[in-house]
């Protein structure tokens, strides 16, 4: 049952307590859905605003993380579509020489490859990446993830299995390469 808030301050406090702990995960996921860290952060901010506006409809006791990831997926999908329509060039299309300045420290927002699994996940093709993000990172159920992605549950299940397999193979390959290098 959704909660009716009469005290605005209490509503705000409850929202922050419920939603803000997921900010780091949401930012991590958004950076794998969006072309640039600042666009991703904007998407997370928009996610929080949408969630806040519809907080009265959120059912206490249900999975807040899944709720936020569902909104984030929608925001990022819209952003990608808008970017495509505006033909906004992504940062990675700017000549590398303009961006790679070895004398400059790496900005935190650009150091996205903070873990091997994160890097390989970012490299995964759509729609497999979204299936993995929604279920494994966002903790959505198969049915919730399928609804968010606009596909059948069976399709989502298949995408998820293929995405995980591809990820596992890439990570296993990296482990083998590292072991070989250490041996040599």
């Amino acid at each position, binding site marked *: 049952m959704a909660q009716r808030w009469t005290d*605005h301050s209490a509503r705000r406090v409850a929202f922050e307590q419920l939603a803000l702990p997921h900010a780091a995960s949401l930012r991590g996921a958004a950076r*794998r859905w969006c072309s640039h860290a600042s666009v991703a952060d904007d998407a997370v901010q928009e996610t929080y605003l949408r969630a806040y506006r519809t907080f009265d409809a959120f059912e206490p006791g249900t999975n807040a993380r899944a709720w936020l990831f569902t909104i984030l997926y929608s925001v990022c999908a819209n952003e990608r579509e808008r970017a495509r329509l505006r033909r*906004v060039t992504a940062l990675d299309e700017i000549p590398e020489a303009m*961006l790679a300045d070895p004398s400059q420290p790496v*900005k935190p927002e650009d150091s996205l490859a903070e873990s091997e699994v994160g890097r390989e996940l970012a490299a995964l093709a759509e729609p497999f990446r979204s299936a993995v993000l929604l279920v494994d990172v966002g903790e959505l159920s198969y049915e919730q993830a399928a609804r968010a992605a606009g596909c059948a549950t069976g399709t989502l299940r298949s995408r998820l299995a293929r995405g995980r397999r591809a990820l596992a193979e890439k990570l296993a390959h990296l482990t083998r390469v590292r072991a070989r290098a250490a041996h040599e």
Partner: protein
Amino acid sequence: MSDALHPSPEVLGACVDGALAARESAEVEAHARTCETCAGELRALAALKTQLRDGTGVGADPAFDARIRAALDREDGRALPRRVRPRWPYAALAAAAAALLLWAALPRAVDLPAEAAVLAREAAAQPSARTPAAALEARFAAAELPFAARVLDLGMMGWEIASGEVSRLAERPSTQILYRDATGRSLLCVMLEARASELPDDAARFDSGAITFFEFTRGDVTVVAWAEGDVLCFLAGRLPAEEVRALAVAKAMLPPPS
């Protein structure tokens, strides 16, 4: 389920996710007790899930949390008046609705300096690293903005570019460049396609050369604006007004004659 008939990767995944019916899940688990291949698959899938959940977020960032809170503050500012529900008679309510419709049809006056001040406060909390001006110029060029954006070089006055992005202000594309000085103070430069006539009328005006400047105070932020053709430029920061004024005067320029 025998060793010869292994569950599919989808079924193994669903088992790890707890998405199987109890009977099916028990069958898979029974099979895994006698099949090392599938038991290994289940262990690997569980480990991958943990890796994905714990290894793909960014670190906790109090500055970003502050940004979200600031956005919620602005949302509250807009939402609060809508939450007032007076018990008026229907006629009064209808009149109010008509007035509201009329108001909605009027052009919306956005307090651009206030928006710039909010951005300046948010940007001050952002992490930064020196950014080459050439990279920013390339980023702005690639964004195909509807106006000619430029990157102010404030290096001679001790202000280095800390970060820059294409974002939106008052529903319009804008460039936003954050500068920092050696003591860590911050200054934000915002440019967007707009006219000086869109500025609120509470500005302290002053002229320098052929350019008119508009100075605003929004909370603890000084905002100085000027127009370069159809581009409106803002410098905003929690700095003494004379300092922001001097930087604006030093860097403002008239657009080339078209």
